[in-house]
């Protein structure tokens, strides 16, 4: 009788204690699981050896004016084009054109004669045409991506087609007058 009432009150108290233990167990379990998921996902990110291959060096000495070479950096092509005076002038003139991804030519080339770009279309990753003399350069005289029809100008800026951004300028420096390091 009195005993039962006592037990009831204890049970009611016990309920809240149990709830607390239950909820905190679930919370600890959830946080623990989340803490284990991240290392697994992060293991899919580029590994140390992949990151270590992240620079390339090459010479620009032999590139004739008006032509270019393609070098490999991080498994991707990098376009190096020795621009003609007319191409540079056109690129400067287009600084004020209606650009989808506005950027002046001066910011895109450390030395205006040599335009160095990641040769990967910013739409879905194809390699644009325009490095070989036989290839089309698109309506703006730079590069043309055949996959879904993106046109880039003589500064590698997107002018027409589905790509949202300009061809990227990789981080690079001139080690001396004729040698460049990308990455």
């Amino acid at each position: 009788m009195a005993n039962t009432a006592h037990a009831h009150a204890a049970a009611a108290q016990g309920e809240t204690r149990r709830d607390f233990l239950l909820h905190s167990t679930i919370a600890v379990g959830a946080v623990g699981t989340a803490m284990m998921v991240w290392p697994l996902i992060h293991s899919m990110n580029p590994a140390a050896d992949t990151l270590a291959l992240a620079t390339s060096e090459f010479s620009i000495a032999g590139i004739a004016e008006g032509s270019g070479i393609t070098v490999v950096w991080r498994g991707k092509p990098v376009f190096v084009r020795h621009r003609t005076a007319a191409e540079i002038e056109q690129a400067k003139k287009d600084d004020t054109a209606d650009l989808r991804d506005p950027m002046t030519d001066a910011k895109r080339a450390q030395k205006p004669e040599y335009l160095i770009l990641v040769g990967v279309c910013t739409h879905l990753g194809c390699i644009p045409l325009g490095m070989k003399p036989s290839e089309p350069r698109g309506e703006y005289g730079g590069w043309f991506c055949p996959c879904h029809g993106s046109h880039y100008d003589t500064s590698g800026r997107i002018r027409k087609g589905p790509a949202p951004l300009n061809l990227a300028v990789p981080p690079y420096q001139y080690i001396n007058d004729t040698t460049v390091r990308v990455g």
Partner: protein
Amino acid sequence: MSTEKSRLMKAWEWHEQRLPIGSFLDHSLGSKYPAPKNLNYWWNFGSLALFMLVTMIITGVFLAMNYTAHVTLAFNSVERIMRDVNNGWLIRYMHSNGASFFFIVVYIHIFRGLYYGSYKPPREVLWWMGVVIYLLMMATAFMGYVLPWGQMSFWGATVITNLFSAIPGVGDAIVTLLWGGFSVDNPTLNRFFALHYLLPFVIVGVVFIHIWALHVPGSNNPLGIDAAPADKIPFFPYYVAKDVFGLGVFLMVYFAVVFWAPNMMGDPLNYVPANPMVTPPHIVPEWYYLPFYAILRAIPDKLLGVVAMFGSILILFVLPWLDRHPVRSASFRPIFRIFFWIFLANGLMLGWCGAQLAEGLPLILSRIGTFWYFFHFIVLLPLLSWIETPKPLPASISQPVLSPAE
């Protein structure tokens, strides 16, 4: 002899009491599972899909015994399977064409559901599980196609993984994560192989749930009305026999292609080893993705194109709430039936567009087709649920046969 037999029976019963696997199968696909007696041949494609799943897993495991997931070796290991491994050509052609036939079967299975209203109450969850299986199949087949490391493997992988770069803000980080590097490369190939091996077994799990959900309301039927117990027959022997007959016909077609036209549905460019420095002039995905590729390219904006492409499949999840017409089967919905066939034709047209260069007429047609695809789901189906008068439904499956005059 008879005592011998009853001893066997006793052993079986002893086992059944401890693990009732026989009774489980009998209730799942046997004599204890009643199915409507009027199912037509379009109902064969579910069991055919299951057959193809098992075929893909068996051939896949044997391929994996000779395949090497490394960028310098993958292409040659597949050529070695074709030339040197005993029956390797057969196993590989069964697997590569098997993927195509798996999709043919599943597409027919899906359109069967669309025609007979199998997605409507009470089968919505069953329908969802089907859409999940379809999505998993697309992911599995995509990663499988990367494994032989030909030109189409590489550039297909590049274009498809780059779709995720359209996500604002985190897109590029996600793509780097998917690649495990700065382009599609060896880490990408390795993980694709691991996932290509895993996902089919995930599909097996979802197929289980799919069939479980099927058993709650039971099969729909060509009339789309609820089947009374008197209008049902046991799955075994009736539908097992019918499914096996259908399987025989199917196998003739499947193996005709495996033996005599094994490269008909494949792209010859995939017999050129992957070259990360040269994009082929015309990248085309496998035929079963073409309608969605057409939708992607129909839209000139990158993000919107990707959204429309994924949306075109995800919209299937809400189909039961877009088409709320109480009558399931198109046989009793004369207007819906017309638009069903237009929808199918539109899908085929989009598929054709997806294989062409995205310019000129194909581009115009893909835009019209994309518009129609969404118009069908978002405008037509809700509108028809509202206004369409159905033809009178029979009171039961037997009624039109027993009293045809009515």
